[in-house]
């Protein structure tokens, strides 16, 4: 029982070792909590760490195992959740001051499923406020740092989760992705992150940012881990009307399938443009070679409306967000401003104090885009262009089984580098956004390191409900280009 290296195990390895009683859940949990203690001052991946509760939970898991009870495939394994999933009895902040003291009266569906799988909840991860951001710099609780280079951002908005997984502070985590918020931080932190098809995972209890785009998904150190975790959280939920009633396949089985004959589309629009760093291009080309070496076939495709995706997203997402965030008015929960003379002042002051700049910006854009006289020109128009973007993908998937693209245009940038101008920050999501608009699934898998040792990820996209194909292709890349298991920083 090498506790010193327990944190380097994969999720599945850890699950097996606990199940086979090579290590107790409590020992494993303590090992990770110690690691968190050591690394948190540097990385700051968490908003809430559940030390006592996790140890107690782990103890219960051990007692159950002793009686031969196994709750599920992750029995006794410590994991983390982005602080966007409601956890009853545990404050859930969404990275915002306005919810800094919110204790949800219920569990999110994802929370329920994680607990039902037997996993132990270590903590709630840091995130960009209300999931709005690409660097985790907008969190009210301070930024998270990239474990690969503490002067750099981990990506966002699920930066805390990606950093925690990369730094082996948990065996895996669940994040959310609205415009790339799982895939981009996964790429920048050298881990695997997947956004499933819209409707694959229930949004019940997942604090809403942009309802027609948000999806929860796994972040883990290996493709198999991600596949296993998706299997745990996916499935129909009656409480989410957009949740689809389709059976959950065995994603794990897909990971080892051969890619011989797989048609890998290369959308030319993703490889043009000056923003793409040469190192990233090179690394993604290695990923392509990994696939073609194993029998996949490269195909040129085109997604002609790609250049309009960012504008489309930055109208639709803020519009939905402006409505979703209107409930934060100081009446029933969360922060309430003091000293207001009347109701309107109370609400206005509460929201001014409770929201950070990025959130306010997006609420303003969204409100504007929906307002009288502007709806057709902005929101209405964007919804139409969204249809064009979806059609692009439908057409591309006639010629290809998966699409291969970079996940992010560059490796991790420095803290503060892009906070001066919103548009500059938005451009980090240029490759990930179209997938959310179309509702299709996407995965980021590590495919190399930059010259300065920063992780680079390759993105794979597939048609609706073809997550298995993504796991197959990602697995093939991983086998050819095995990434380091954890970030080099030591605690």
């Amino acid at each position, binding site marked *: 029982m090498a506790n010193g290296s327990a944190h380097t195990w994969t999720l599945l390895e850890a699950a097996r070792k606990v199940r086979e009683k090579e290590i107790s859940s409590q020992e494993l949990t303590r090992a990770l909590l110690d690691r968190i203690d050591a690394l948190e001052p540097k990385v700051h991946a968490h908003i809430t760490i559940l030390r006592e509760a996790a140890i107690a939970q782990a103890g219960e898991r051990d007692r159950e195992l002793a009686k031969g009870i196994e709750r599920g495939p992750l029995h006794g394994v410590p994991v983390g959740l982005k602080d966007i*999933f*409601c956890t009853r009895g545990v404050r*859930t902040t*969404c990275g915002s001051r306005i*919810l800094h003291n*919110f204790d*949800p*009266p*219920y569990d*999110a569906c994802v929370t329920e499923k994680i607990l039902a799988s037997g996993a132990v909840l270590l903590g709630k991860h840091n995130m960009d406020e209300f999931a709005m951001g690409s660097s985790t710099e907008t969190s009210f609780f301070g930024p998270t740092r990239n474990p690969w280079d503490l002067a750099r951002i981990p990506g966002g908005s699920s930066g805390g989760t990606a950093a925690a997984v990369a730094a082996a502070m948990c065996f895996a985590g669940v994040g959310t992705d609205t415009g790339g918020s799982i895939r981009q931080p996964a790429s920048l932190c050298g881990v695997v992150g997947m956004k499933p098809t819209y409707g694959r995972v229930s*949004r*019940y*209890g*997942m*604090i*809403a940012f*942009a*309802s*027609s785009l948000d999806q929860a998904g796994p972040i883990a150190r290996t493709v198999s881990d991600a596949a296993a975790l998706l299997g745990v959280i996916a499935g129909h939920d*009656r*409480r*989410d*009307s*957009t949740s689809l009633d389709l059976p959950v396949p065995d994603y794990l089985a897909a990971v080892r399938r051969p890619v011989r004959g797989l048609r890998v589309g290369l959308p030319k629009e993703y490889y043009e443009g000056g923003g793409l760093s040469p190192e990233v291009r090179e690394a993604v080309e290695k990923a392509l070679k990994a696939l073609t070496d194993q029998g996949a076939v490269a195909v040129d495709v085109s997604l002609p409306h790609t250049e309009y995706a960012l504008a489309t997203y930055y109208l639709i997402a803020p*519009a*939905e967000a*402006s*409505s979703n965030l*209107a*409930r934060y*008015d100081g*009446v*029933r*929960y969360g922060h309430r401003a003091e000293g207001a003379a009347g*109701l*309107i002042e109370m*609400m206005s002051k509460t929201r001014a104090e409770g929201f950070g700049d990025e959130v306010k910006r997006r609420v303003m854009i969204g*409100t504007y885009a*929906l*307002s*009288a006289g502007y*709806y057709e020109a902005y*929101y209405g128009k964007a919804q139409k262009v969204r249809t064009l973007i979806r059609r692009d993908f439908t057409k591309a998937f006639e010629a290809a089984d998966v699409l291969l693209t970079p996940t992010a245009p560059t490796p991790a940038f420095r803290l503060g580098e892009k906070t001066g101008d919103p548009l500059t920050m938005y451009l980090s999501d240029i490759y990930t956004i179209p997938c959310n608009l179309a509702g299709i699934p996407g995965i980021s898998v590590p495919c190399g390191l930059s010259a300065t040792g920063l992780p680079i990820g390759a993105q794979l996209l597939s048609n609706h409900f073809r997550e298995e194909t993504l796991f197959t292709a990602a697995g093939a890349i991983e086998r050819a280009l095995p990434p380091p298991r954890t970030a080099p920083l030591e605690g």
Partner: protein
Amino acid sequence: MPFEAVIGLEVHAQLSTRSKIFCSCSAAFGAPPNENTCPVCTGMPGVLPVLNRKAVEFTIRTALATSCTVQRRSVFARKNYFYPDLPKAYQISQYELPIALGGHIDIDAGNGTKRIGITRIHMEEDAGKLVHEGEFSGAQASLADLNRCSVPLMEIVSEPDMTTPEEGGAYLRRLRDILVYLGVCDGNMEEGSFRCDANVSVRPSGVKEFGTKVELKNMNSFRNVEKALEYEIRRQSEALEDGGQVVQETRLWDANEGRTVSMRRKEEAHDYRYFPDPDLLPLIIDEAWIEELRKTIPELPAEKIARLERQYGISRYDAALLASDRALADFFEASAAVFGGNPKTTANECIHWKDAVLARKLSPETIAHAVEDRERGTVSATASKKLVELVLSTGKPFRTLRDEQGLTQVSDASALDAVVEKVLAASPKEVESYRAGKAGLLSFFVGQVMKESRGKANPRVVQEVLKKKLG
């Protein structure tokens, strides 16, 4: 200058489902504050709506009963505004694509019927209640009770087809009756399950263009709607006559003062920023479901009134009174089926005993027997009333009580013969006076016969027998 009014009415009807429209909390009225709440209807972070099928059913049936076209595809939209009784800061409603369009209701107007168009029907959720803390305007705070949040509502918008307050009242009453007949709403304006706002404008008679429209709110009974309309039409006409203008605004009806008052609050043009709710998919209704529900539409008030009138030969007025409650009309018909010899009397009896009928304290047989006995002269009208009251207090059958109480009238002339003879024999002087021309003495004789028969003689028959004998 004569003016004509243009009136449109907007009704919000609370649907009598058991649970709320988007969550499974109870939709019942009158619970302690915030008792019927959950994370969904209180707008907690992360919650999502799930549509109540019964609410859709009720709305489809209402659409069918008002001849609307049910839309195969309709969309829920968010209506965004901030208020403490609106937890999500948006109301889930329907905007561009409502569930039903283009229907009508026929009302009695003047000598015939008038068709009032219905523009649209859509579904939405109700808001909670805000009460001011303390009694006086100095109160600094309000208290929010969210029990009512997400109770299902149907919004029914009429065409501006009404021209008088009476037509407005008739439309509302007819619409309410239809909803109650369908069992979709309990139609109680005072309790708030049936609410009405009005849009009123006036224009010089004969002019085609509409005048400026004023919205009226805060009318909590049919009568108050009529009064408010009456007042407002007069106010606007006078304003225009004096050379002034009508301001487009919202006014509140003040029932105490009997006038409408401007809301005065700077009504910042409400920009609700409607957009399709991404948490709910389009509402798809197939033909099969519509047809299945069409079969459940009962005979509606207008048809019932006409049929009762026709079939039973009763007055339209009485038919309308009976039809004002489906249970009462059904009772009437059941009673007439037992004894149909005098439907007019049956109708009168049902109307007279309406409260007991609706409280299910009387059976159709009781009324049928009462009517039949009166028809045959077996009991007098007075006795009949007394007997029904006894039925109510004792629960015994009408005829049992009639016999127990000895209230059977003797109506057979030959049976009365002996008594009449006896009375006449006992009053020879009066007989002579009568025959000499004092016709008024007839009532004296009737009285004596009644006394002699201990009230059992049918006075009408007594009179006839007396007249025959006295000549």
